[in-house]
């Protein structure tokens, strides 16, 4: 007999701490939206936002005993936990506490930390019951109903990875949401807005720095670019393809596309709700909280010219442009080819657009990054942004797979030419990104040298033991993954982690003299071509320019030796 719960479920959504080096910057959108769905179903819901509450503990992680007490105080039916990949280590630490404090709840993971390799996550975090893969709203809603009806037949719900004793079961792929206007606005009353407003100021632009009540929103799902370092779901659905193809992405893609066809939801990888939905969202935030700045944390607003123009027009029509300034992210190819879009955005109150420039080497941009941009796009974008008086913001990264000393010099030269000071990220192969899948064994070997010895045939070890070693190495890698300021694994074909750190420093300080001096030294030691710089950079290189000077002096001396004194110009004699 199935006992249907008369009342709604009691749902707890837990947001782990992230980026402890600054205050909490962005509302936990996923928790807010899922809380709204619970409220629509007349359920009870709580958001335990550890990332906001840590400010009550000097910005450090919330003490375990506090978390334990909070969770254990209620009898939860459903506990969900989510976050970016970088929250993996904290979630793994919290999982046993959550399981102990909510013993009767269905314990569910979701979001970037668990979406890309849910089968491995279920092994590494044994307290979890199941994982919601990718876009979670509809899957969560169906899960809620299933728990409420007490039928618990989760296998009929698409988009899940369910624990099955020592293994797991994947249900069918979940189709993407075809109309994002159906997604409810976050339950703002359950978000720790007072804490977020205290940490309102961010230094992206003057207006964002001076803001007192900055709110954040996410509307866009996915991105039209296919950057190889990006793990975001919806980008190319590479994550789902990989999961359902069990490593064979082509096989997986077939399944995912079939699911799209069945559900009539085949669509562009990047999707937006209507401009009206977004402007209404901001009006709601204005009405409820009197916000003065909006951070639109979308992947790539400028890539959709039509949508952006509609949004900006509506924003001005509603009179928001003078009252609430905003900032967002964009990409260079779209701005370089449609520079007028920047002015449209500025007139609608935009105060900054942040770009991922990544590298100024056309070779790296084309072969490694694969965003569809070239150096000329970067320059045009930069010039456009500066002309419009917006704050120029951009990210660069080094340690790309085929990046050699010439490519690095292209990048630092771009900075010097543009009078810019940059401290680049180090390319990090986050789980879910194409560079992770393409280099997985290399990455894991950096966390367990035994795997290299086995690959080299020094030992004959059975597959089960190798699988276990790989899983443990993956755990170490994911535990270490941070915000790419620090090192994890490298996928560079040429440079080691210590070398990348030195390169990063020399590039940041624009110390091309030392960088190229070192390159000469390393080339002499290794004879590896990737350390040999081209003549193009001789003017930055003290060794090459010094050699040239000495060659000239020697030439002059030779000329002096063979030339009658009265025919030598006076200046030449002086310089000698």
């Amino acid at each position, binding site marked *: 007999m199935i006992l249907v719960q008369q009342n709604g479920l009691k749902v707890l959504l837990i947001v782990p701490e992230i980026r402890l080096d600054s205050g909490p910057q962005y509302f936990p959108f996923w928790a807010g939206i899922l809380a709204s769905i619970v409220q629509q179903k007349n359920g009870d819901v709580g958001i335990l936002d550890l990332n906001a509450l840590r400010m009550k503990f000097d910005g450090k992680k919330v003490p375990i005993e506090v978390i334990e007490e909070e969770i254990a105080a209620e009898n939860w039916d459903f506990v969900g936990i989510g976050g970016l990949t970088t929250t993996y280590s904290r979630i793994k630490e919290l999982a046993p506490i959550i399981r102990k404090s909510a013993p009767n709840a269905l314990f569910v993971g979701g979001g970037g930390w668990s979406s890309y390799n849910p089968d491995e996550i279920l092994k590494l975090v044994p307290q979890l019951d199941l994982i919601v893969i990718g876009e979670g709203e509809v899957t969560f809603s169906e899960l809620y109903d299933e728990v409420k009806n007490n039928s618990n037949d989760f296998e009929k719900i698409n988009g899940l990875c369910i624990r099955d004793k020592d293994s797991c079961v994947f249900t069918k792929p979940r189709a993407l949401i075809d109309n994002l206007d159906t997604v409810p606005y976050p339950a703002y009353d359950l978000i720790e807005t007072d804490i977020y407003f*205290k940490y309102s100021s961010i230094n992206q632009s003057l207006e964002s*720095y001076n803001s007192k009540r900055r709110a954040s929103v996410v509307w866009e799902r996915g991105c039209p670019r296919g950057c190889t370092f990006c793990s975001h779901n919806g980008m190319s659905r590479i994550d789902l393809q990989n999961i359902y193809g069990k490593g064979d992405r082509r096989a997986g893609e077939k399944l995912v596309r079939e699911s799209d066809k069945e559900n009539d939801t085949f669509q562009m990888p990047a999707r937006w709700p209507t401009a009206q939905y977004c402007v209404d969202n901001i009006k709601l935030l204005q009405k409820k909280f009197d916000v003065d700045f909006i951070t639109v944390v979308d992947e790539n607003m400028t890539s959709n010219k039509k949508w952006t123009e509609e949004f900006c027009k509506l924003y001005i029509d509603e009179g928001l442009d003078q009252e609430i300034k905003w900032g967002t992210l964009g990409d260079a190819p779209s701005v370089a080819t449609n520079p007028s879009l920047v002015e449209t955005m500025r007139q609608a109150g935009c105060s900054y657009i942040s770009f991922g420039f990544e590298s100024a080497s056309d070779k790296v941009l084309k072969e490694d990054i694969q965003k569809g941009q070239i150096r000329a796009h970067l320059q045009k974008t930069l010039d456009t942004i*500066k002309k419009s008086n917006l704050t120029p913001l951009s990210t660069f990264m080094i340690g790309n797979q085929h990046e050699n000393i010439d490519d690095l010099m292209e990048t630092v030269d771009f900075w010097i*030419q543009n*009078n810019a000071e*940059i401290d680049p990220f180090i390319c990090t192969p986050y789980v879910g990104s194409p560079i992770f899948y393409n280099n997985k064994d290399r990455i894991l070997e950096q966390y367990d040298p035994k795997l290299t010895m086995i690959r080299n045939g020094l030992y004959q070890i059975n597959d089960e033991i190798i699988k276990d070693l790989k899983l443990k190495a993956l755990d170490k890698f994911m535990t270490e993954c941070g915000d790419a300021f620090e090192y994890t694994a490298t996928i560079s074909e040429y440079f080691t982690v210590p070398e990348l750190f030195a390169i990063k420093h020399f590039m940041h300080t624009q110390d091309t003299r030392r960088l190229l001096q070192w390159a000469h030294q390393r080339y002499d030691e290794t004879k590896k071509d990737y350390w040999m710089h081209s003549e193009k950079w001789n003017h930055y290189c003290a060794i090459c320019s010094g050699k040239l000077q000495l060659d000239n002096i020697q030439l002059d001396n030779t000329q002096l030796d063979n030339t009658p004194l009265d025919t030598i110009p006076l200046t030449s004699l002086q310089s000698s």
Partner: protein
Amino acid sequence: MKTNFKKIKSNSYSDKDDGPTEFKRELSPEEFEEFIVKSGARGSFMIYRSKNSDDELGVDQL
């Protein structure tokens, strides 16, 4: 924790201070630029030394 229902027990940390009660002083555009230059360019930010940048850039040069 915030909930849409009355909790059995209140938060033990509810009275704890969660950060500054007063906001930072607003900066002028010049002060902001100086602040940005002084704060370095950690990771993500492209920071322009403003003095000569306009002279060095121009769409027409592309």
